[in-house]
């Protein structure tokens, strides 16, 4: 039986996302080496820590290249928070660092906070994900219509091609890409494993998704 590979690059707690994927109906294996990706049906890269550390750990373990290879073969990929950001070409968090370049674009910091306007950094809490009207909503994101999801981040994804933006969120007056993707790859800035029913519905949709 093929399993969902949950990438563990050693930065933090895999507990919540593993439990949430299991509850959504998946069989989860924690993956620390490229070889462990051989027999996988889906890849989930969760996000904890800094971009620099994540990118460096993926490179050092060879997992970064293995993930790119699997993605190129068509294996469905879900990146969560930092796991979304690392899909892009590069990031400006603590200097300029290279990502997996699955989607062309950069990770940028939010503009400075304005407490008097209720705009603070990090962007933390429950907020919307909005979809362009008149455009088909991505099957993985469909359960999130009119739902709020849980965000915690100070940096956001700016893909070069607007076609790769699947959903947006506004923080203060500042809109950013809340979900990105192309072909068999999806990345979300929020945490489905912390978004209660809405998040669980997204994980279930990802497990059923056949791109």
């Amino acid at each position: 039986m093929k399993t969902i590979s949950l990438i563990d690059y050693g930065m933090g707690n895999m507990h919540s996302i593993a439990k949430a994927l299991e509850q959504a109906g998946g069989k989860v294996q924690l993956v620390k080496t490229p070889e462990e990706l051989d027999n996988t049906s889906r890849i989930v890269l969760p996000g904890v820590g800094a971009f620099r550390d994540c990118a460096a750990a993926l490179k050092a373990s060879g997992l970064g290249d293995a993930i790119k290879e699997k993605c190129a073969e068509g294996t469905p990929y879900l990146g969560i928070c930092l796991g979304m950001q690392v899909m892009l070409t590069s990031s400006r968090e603590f200097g300029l660092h290279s990502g997996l370049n699955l989607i062309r674009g950069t990770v940028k910091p939010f503009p400075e906070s304005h407490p008097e306007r209720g705009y603070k950094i990090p962007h933390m809490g429950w907020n919307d994900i909005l979809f362009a009207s008149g455009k088909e909503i991505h099957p993985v994101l469909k359960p999130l219509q009119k739902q709020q999801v849980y965000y915690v981040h100070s940096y956001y994804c700016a893909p070069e091609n607007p076609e790769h933006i699947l959903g947006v969120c506004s923080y203060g007056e500042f809109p950013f890409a809340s979900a990105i993707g192309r072909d068999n790859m999806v990345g979300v800035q929020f945490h489905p494993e912390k978004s209660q029913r809405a998040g669980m519905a997204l994980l279930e949709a990802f497990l059923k998704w056949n791109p």
Partner: protein
Amino acid sequence: MLSKRIIPCLDVAHGRVVKGVQFVDIIDAGDPVEAAIRYDEQGADELCFLDIRASHESRDTLYHMVTDVAEHVFMPLTVGGGVKEIADIENLLHAGADKVSINTAAIFNPEFVKEAAERFGSSTIVVAVDAKRVQKNGTDDHWECFTHGGRKPTGINAVEWAKRMSDYGAGEILLTSMDCDGTKNGYDIPLTRAVAEAIPANVIASGGVGNLEHMAEGLTDGKADAVLAASIFHFGEYTIAEAKNYLADKGIPVRI
């Protein structure tokens, strides 16, 4: 639009939920996992666990409890009580906490907050500030930080302290009014507002909530990003859903 958060707080001791009035008269209020599941079903935005009997011996009990809760509910968990070193934070995060609250250790070693924020990210680090109103020589009121569950004064101005902690990288200030805690007379609005206007970090108002109007005041007049409540939810006076519907009717952005 970003929603204001409603956070039920569970004081725990030896793996049980307890509730005190002004930090004394502790009574048993139930099983942490059952309480977490109940609040999850009611639509709480986040849960906060504070180990009020934090001691070295009870650490493992706390970690097990956090793991147990994190296996049952899929929502943000903040855990605090007796967090003194980087290893404590690491252990709590590995157990399943999303954010860790630091209180007394921040007062004794402010650099610890800086180190923790750099290592785990601002969004992971909450600094709990227990503040009490003091008057000196007939000057204007101000607030002072207290430690050890509100027993020891520090001489530190609470608003300035919150600002320093925010500068050091704390993503949130969990602001408890020692004067109001347990009274059910409402949050200390001037205190909450003074801190919320002074710092870029998020402010969670705590201490004194007795009804839903108090919650609305904390979020509007107090300018808090989130409100914390314990007894009004534990003892079934209100459900989270009732609180949110009330706030939504007042035009406050909440997640229904």
